[in-house]
């Protein structure tokens, strides 16, 4: 069985050397070439025609994501696995959005890296387990939206207070706008939030978005 041909892009020679050692020690993969930036990588790739590009996120010149986008435009079938020290879903998302098939952390164990290469080689997607956990948690947070009750439970006054809260007004401003006392606003606020099962202003805003309160005038009266 022929080995999958890997091309390394990383501006740190030490890292490339380390990666080479890990990868070349396997029976499944071999490093066929390397580059320290996106532009020179692009030329090399057209010559070497590797199966997978292992791409660092932060480099001088093009970022990993930008280089990925360029490569995928030139070689649509090319598989790119992002590699980064950033334990952040946003970085991973950026990579995946630009056409990468996976995202693996530099601090991941060698076997995780090899697993990622394997998965990508098979044509699967791969996201580092640490980041995958984050994504699942985000999903859970968002599922809170479903427990929200109906806006009909609110009185007219309570609805108004909720709308103003969602627009980002302080209690003081709401009190002034409605011509009532601060205490009254606080009461309306906690009562309507508990009626709707909302906790915190983020919930209020999500609720408002869901009910189209903010859709007509996005960001109305924010300042």
């Amino acid at each position: 069985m022929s080995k999958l041909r890997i091309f390394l892009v990383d501006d740190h020679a030490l890292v490339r050397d380390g990666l080479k050692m890990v990868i070349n020690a396997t029976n499944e993969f071999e490093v066929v070439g390397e580059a320290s930036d996106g532009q020179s990588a692009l030329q090399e790739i057209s010559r070497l025609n590797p199966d997978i590009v292992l791409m660092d996120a932060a480099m001088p010149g093009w970022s990993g994501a930008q280089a990925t986008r360029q490569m995928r435009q030139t070689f649509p079938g090319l598989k790119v696995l992002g590699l980064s020290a950033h334990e952040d879903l946003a970085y991973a998302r950026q990579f995946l959005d630009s056409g990468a098939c996976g995202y693996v952390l530099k601090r991941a164990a060698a076997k995780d890296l090899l697993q990622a290469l394997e998965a990508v080689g098979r044509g699967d997607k791969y996201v580092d387990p640490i980041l995958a956990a984050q994504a699942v948690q985000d999903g859970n947070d968002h599922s809170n939206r479903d427990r929200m009750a109906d806006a009909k439970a609110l009185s007219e006054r309570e609805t108004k207070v909720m709308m103003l809260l969602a627009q980002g007004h302080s209690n003081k401003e709401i009190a002034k706008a409605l011509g009532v006392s601060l205490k009254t606003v606080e009461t309306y606020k906690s009562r309507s939030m508990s009626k709707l099962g909302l906790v915190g202003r983020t919930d209020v805003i999500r609720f408002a978005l869901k009910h189209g309160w903010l859709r007509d005038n996005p960001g109305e009266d924010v300042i």
Partner: protein
Amino acid sequence: MPSRKHIAFKQRCEEAAALFASMRHRLHSGGLEPAEVLQELGNVLEELEVSSEELRVQSTELKSAHSKIEAERQRYEELFEFAPDSYLVLDTNGVIVECNRAAAALLNRDQSYLMGKPFALFIAASDKKVFRSRIAHLVHHPQSGAQLFELEIQPQSRSALPAFTTMGCILDANQAAIGIRCILHDMSSVRRLEKERTELAAMVESSNDPIFGVDGRGIIRNWNKGSERLFGYKKEEIVGKHVDWLLPVKQGGSLSERINECQDHAEFEMVCQSKKGTDMDCLVTVSAMQRSAANEQLFAVVIRDMTQSKRANQLLQTALRRAVEAQEEERQRISRELHDHLGQGAAALMYGLASLSNSGPMSSQQQQELSELHNLSCKLAKDVHTISWELRPAALDDLGLPAALEQLVRTWSDRSKIAAELEIAGVGEKRFSTLVETSIFRIAQEALTNVLKHSGASLVSVVLRQGKNGLLLIVEDDGRGVLLKTNASNVGSQQLGLTSMKYRAASAGGTLEIESSPGKGVAIFVRIPFANLASASEPQA
């Protein structure tokens, strides 16, 4: 003096006596019949009886008139005694014959003591001569009418006071002077007011602060030295002009309108223009003065030229902003260096160690040591990443504010074990200026640190919203809250590290507001107007 009726009665008695004498004579001479005598006597007696009756009536009338006069006298005596002004009666030598309570109080001596004392004792040395000459004049020219003049009165063991004095003659039936009546009116309070008013006027006039008066129609009524200095107009050329004369020609709005709106006291900023045409940022303070006697509304206007202090403030702001920016840049540089060199080195080390473990057969102890080294380098890489993140998250520069906030909120929540939710709405791909992104991020970071330190909260909401007016950040917790006073320097605000957050907001051209009450958590609102968001146009590196 005997009354007319009394005289008539006496006359009748005398006539009767004469009649008796003549009748006795005629009786003795036999020239008169006893019957005639009796007739005559009867007539006389009747007349006398009538007269006597008249007298009796008159006597009763007199008695009642007397008691009326007595009542009047007492009334006048009381008026005299209790009059608010000081009344004195002097003899022609100036000795006190009578004095009322007010006079006794003014001179600070008992009424009884004052009786018989020369009034000159209570006149200041400088005025004794004047007093004597006035008395002499009155005594010699009793008809000349009252004398009005000012006397310096020297009360017993009190400081001298000015008194407005009226002196006139008391005349006898022959129009000769038998005494002097004297009224003293204490002028000290009036003098004091006059003095205060003069001093105040002088203070206003000479004040370095520009102060001027404006009437209800907006006409400048007076103009002090400070106003002359600031605006360059002389009093003569500006008094009588409309106050809007002081504004730049192009400027909308009216100073006179703003002044007229003032009910009691008002303060506002306005750009004014000097005679030379220089625009000045002015702080205008208006006080509505009490209406004058003519019921005319007047306003006192104080102008403070803020141009200098504004410029100084701007310089200070700029310096502070540069300091913060420099700090951020330095952090960014160190953070990058750490990440790029130390971090990548650690990664390389990890890979090297990993490949070493596959390189050939080794003892279990070697395996163990290698594994520990690998773990160590792994921890090193993680630490470097954390430190670099804490210095300045690379995401803030690489990915923008929403991603950095997401990271911040997640990391904070993981570390603090406090639930935290983030909602980002209306914020697109477009980047804001580094200043705005850094400020918002650092404020959120600081606010979350505060929540952890003080609030005892179980949930924190972080909201980032962009609307047509600008950008809004809310960090709101459901913790204990604090009691906030309006004064920003109170303990609550200090606890919350408001000063540095407010400064951050201001340096990005925004505002920061905090709202809290006990048991209701703390909410921080940062608003940056659209004009100050200045999205960076350079492409991402």
